[in-house]
């Protein structure tokens, strides 16, 4: 197995971002953070990629949190910005799926929360242990968690440092699917294949309208949605999609 901290594998239109430090539980340190950010940039620049799957090698997803360096760096903001990898994952413009093949805790859960969809192995556990350790999440945990599961579940999980089983995580809406043991990645691949058959630009715009729209007043969100929809008028994918529907055949989208 390669020693690179992150493996990028492209299979057709699906790209796999694989955290490859099982011995360190894929703890996000400076090197891993840099590798994830670099990979996300690469993915955004490759228009042939339609779906991203984030997962880990063996049965490890990602746990733990890097604490501040012993001597406080002169610019602590820079240090934290450098470490904020969930922010880069959230900026990936295609649909993203976290295949949670093992525990997703602390910073590891923040990475999963930055994906659009989460599929977890039956054995995986999810939660933030930070407050019980005197730490505080700083990679979107407090913001993305509450937007996904609602305010009260988010406060409950953060304040009590409670760790959820995958089944419980599904019940509170933290993940979208639970799979039997060892099957999270397979499930995610099937999901990704089905998403990759959708019109890629339309899917990217849908993602953008949802995430950016939630940050705006509703009337502004409606304007964003309408403008993105008019931008799609010029695509060949739109003609292809409508023609395939009217002539009752499967569409073939070029992403143009």
């Amino acid at each position: 197995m390669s020693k690179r901290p992150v493996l990028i594998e492209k299979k057709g239109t699906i790209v796999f971002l694989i955290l490859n430090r099982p011995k360190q539980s894929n703890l996000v340190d400076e090197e891993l953070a840099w590798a994830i950010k670099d990979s996300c940039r690469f993915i955004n620049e490759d228009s042939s990629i339609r779906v991203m799957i984030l997962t880990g090698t063996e049965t490890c997803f990602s746990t733990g949190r890097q604490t501040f360096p012993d001597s406080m760096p002169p610019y602590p903001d820079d240090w934290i910005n450098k470490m904020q990898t969930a922010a880069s994952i959230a900026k990936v413009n295609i649909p993203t799926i976290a295949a949670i093949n093992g525990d997703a805790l602390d910073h590891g859960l923040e990475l999963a929360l930055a994906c659009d969809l989460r599929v977890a192995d039956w054995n995986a556990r999810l939660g933030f242990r930070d407050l019980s350790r005197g730490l505080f999440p700083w990679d979107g945990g407090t913001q993305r968690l509450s937007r996904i599961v609602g305010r009260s579940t988010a406060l409950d999980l953060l304040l009590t440092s409670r760790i959820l089983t995958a089944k419980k995580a599904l019940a509170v809406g933290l993940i979208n699917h639970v799979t039997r043991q060892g099957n999270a990645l397979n499930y995610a691949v099937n999901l990704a294949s089905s998403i990759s058959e959708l019109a890629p630009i339309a899917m990217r715009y849908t993602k953008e309208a949802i995430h950016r729209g939630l940050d705006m007043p509703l009337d502004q969100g409606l304007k964003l949605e309408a403008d993105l929809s008019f931008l799609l008028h010029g695509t060949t994918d739109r003609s292809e999609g409508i023609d395939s529907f009217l002539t009752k055949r499967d569409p073939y989208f070029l992403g143009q």
Partner: protein
Amino acid sequence: MIMDSFETLDFSVGDKVALIMLKRPEVRNAFNTTMRDDLFQVIETIKADYAITGSIIYGSGKDFCAGADLTEFGTAPSQSIARTIRWERDLWSLFLNNPKPMIAAVHGNCIGSGFEIALLCDVIIASYNARFSMPEARLGLIAAAGGTQTLPRSVGPSKAISIFSSPDSITSQQAHSMGIVSKVVSIKRLMDSARDQATYLSNLRPELIAACKFAVNRGCSLPLNQGLLAETRSALRLMKTQ
């Protein structure tokens, strides 16, 4: 009972409640530009008529609405004209800014723009056989009747993306457990149930309903402190009119 017949819908008022029946059953009530204009007229009437306290929208035949009429697509003169018309005939904002309660009574297929119309209403009551889906991305489109904004505001971003990216539809019960549908009933009970709800709401002070709709629709995407401020202002105004 006042009754008015449009090309794509029937409009009637009984016991202060307006009924809007989508009436293109031969194409599963597909939404087209005529229906847009008919709905625009009807909802303006509902807003303006003091005798109307609320409305119920439902479909004739086997479905609520199977989405946009794709045979019309590509007939718009140009992107920029289409964009102008979108804001001149802003039907979706009219739904959202209607101060009176709107109930969608959904049965059968509720797809694409049909699903979006239901989401623009305040309450969705569905029969057991209702099926909801957003197939836009399979057609090279995005939802453009507010769906990318209304759905994530009711189920969160992740479930919304899951629905937008899935080829499968969701059942009434699934929609109910996600919080999209407020009540699931038998198809026989569907209209009675919607009428009961409308009658209950028509007995409340209308300005309370209007303030509540405004506070929720506006507040759910404001920073909390601003949402709270808007709520306080509404409450103070309502105290004065008590």
